């Protein structure tokens, strides 16, 4: 007898390490629960379960927002709104274990709206592109050369359509796998590949490479 058809279940492990998940004194043993159980509890109104989810993924959401936007502007508003939207729609989450990807998709969606709106405003002369906030992107420990590269890449990203920009940033800056990018952006893999490919070609055309060993290359930041 053939085995009954089964479906794969996505398993997302929570981030490890004390720095990734700040511990709140009032969360009891909830930190040990996986996302699915926390989502189940939170959707029944258990605030501490939602707080645990928040603390588990706040860093992910904040860094995701900053790196896609290229600045830390309004990032707290974005993350706040993303978690609020997630909270209000917890019941709609089919695969509760996939909370992280789902939350990320909400963050991406919020930023995408902002980027498109900003671009549209720019087109009608009511706004302009936000300058790259290098201090929010580059670590203090980043080499001058790396900072210069980040500045250049983000300056070029500013000129791209929001979708291409987001897909490329997720893939090459935030280092998501293609499937992760597809999930975060709500697109098919083929679409994501096309967007990344288009952005990559543009960047390759306009990126001015530093010269290996050239001290001037390190002094551009």
């Amino acid at each position, binding site marked *: 007898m053939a085995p009954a058809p089964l479906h794969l279940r996505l398993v997302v492990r929570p981030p490890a390490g004390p720095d990734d998940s700040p511990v709140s004194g009032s969360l009891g043993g909830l930190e040990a629960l996986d996302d699915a159980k926390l989502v189940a509890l939170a959707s029944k109104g258990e605030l501490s379960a939602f707080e645990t989810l928040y603390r588990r993924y706040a860093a992910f959401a904040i860094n995701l927002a900053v790196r896609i936007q290229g600045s830390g502007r309004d990032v707290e508003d974005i993350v706040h709104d993303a978690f609020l939207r997630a909270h209000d729609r917890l019941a709609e989450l089919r695969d509760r274990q996939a909370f992280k990807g789902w939350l990320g998709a909400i963050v991406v969606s919020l930023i995408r709206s902002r980027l498109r709106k900003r671009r549209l405003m720019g087109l009608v002369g009511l706004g302009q592109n936000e300058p790259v906030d290098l201090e929010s992107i580059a670590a203090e420990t980043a080499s001058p050369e790396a900072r210069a590269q980040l500045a250049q890449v983000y300056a070029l990203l500013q000129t791209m359509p929001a*979708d291409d920009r987001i897909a490329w940033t997720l893939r090459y800056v935030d280092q998501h796998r293609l499937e992760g990018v597809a999930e975060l952006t709500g697109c098919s893999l083929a679409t994501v590949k096309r967007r990344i490919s288009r952005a990559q070609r543009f960047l390759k055309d306009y990126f001015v490479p530093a010269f290996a060993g050239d001290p001037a290359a390190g002094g551009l930041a």
Partner: protein
Amino acid sequence: MSKPKAFEDQLSSLHRAETLRDNADKARVERIWRRLEPNVAVPKSPKRSWSIGWAPGLAAGLVVGFLIGHQYTNVPEATPGKLVAEPTSHEPAGLPEPRRASDQSRTEAPEPTKTLGPREPTRAPRSVPLKETPEASVFAEVPVIETAPAPAGSAPVPQPNWLKLADRGEYQRAYHSLEEYGGFDAVLSKASADELMILADVARATGNRGRAIQALRRVTQSFVSDPNAPIAAMTLGRMLLQAGDSKGASEAFSLYRRLSPEGDFAEDALASDIQAAVEEGNWDRAQTLAKQYESDFPDGRHLEQIREQLHAAQRANGSNPEPSEPLGEESEVDSEAQTAPPAESPYQ
């Protein structure tokens, strides 16, 4: 004189831990939570609040609308404007983005510019030179390297109407336009690999799943050395798995793994192949592939679900096949695993 580093080499330094800043300091996390907590702690009573709240909301909306309308109607003279199209068009959400014949599907290993034949559109120069962007000042001193001009003498051949429409995301019209060229099958038989991928998009977007499978299958059969073939195989496998053709799906996933063993989807193709083998009832193959998965991807993202799947298959099968070590080891099975929806694209 030193050579410039390749673009890809330079990119590799961008995502090092010491390069990117961690913006999630504890104070910020706490600050957001303090704002968030009162909003999520309030018990929801949507019906009551809606029934009471709609009236002032409607009134406020009317007032705002009136004020905005009033403001605009009082503008003495409309300023002449010019509508400028964006360089890249994007279709509304929900529809696949138009595929361009010039697009390369592979991003993991950027290759030299591919010659695509007469239909490849010439890349238009950027309308905004780099130096004009304010952000570009950070690298204003970097020497500008001229890119090679496009090869001359290749007169563009007009695209077929269906390709133009597909390029604009008008898939329904593109599908109907195929009739101008003898119908889907006629176009299919003459299409290049790039066109077949677009044809598959058109078919999928218009709900013609069978046609899409036809186009993708042709890519994997007639253009197996084309760069589109791996992604076509992967997409084909997924479509066939959804359609219940486990055997065909398994073949497609195997093809992907042969064509692109180090590709982005190699791990997912193997995991999907296992799923297809289980659904097909091919127990031996499922176990063999599962062992291969564990060997190739010892820390694989699908390892746990594969174990669960094999255990569940054993139970459903009612048999007790030779337990495979260590895949056969007991693992905690979440009760939701039995009712979980079909695999979504795994997220790292």
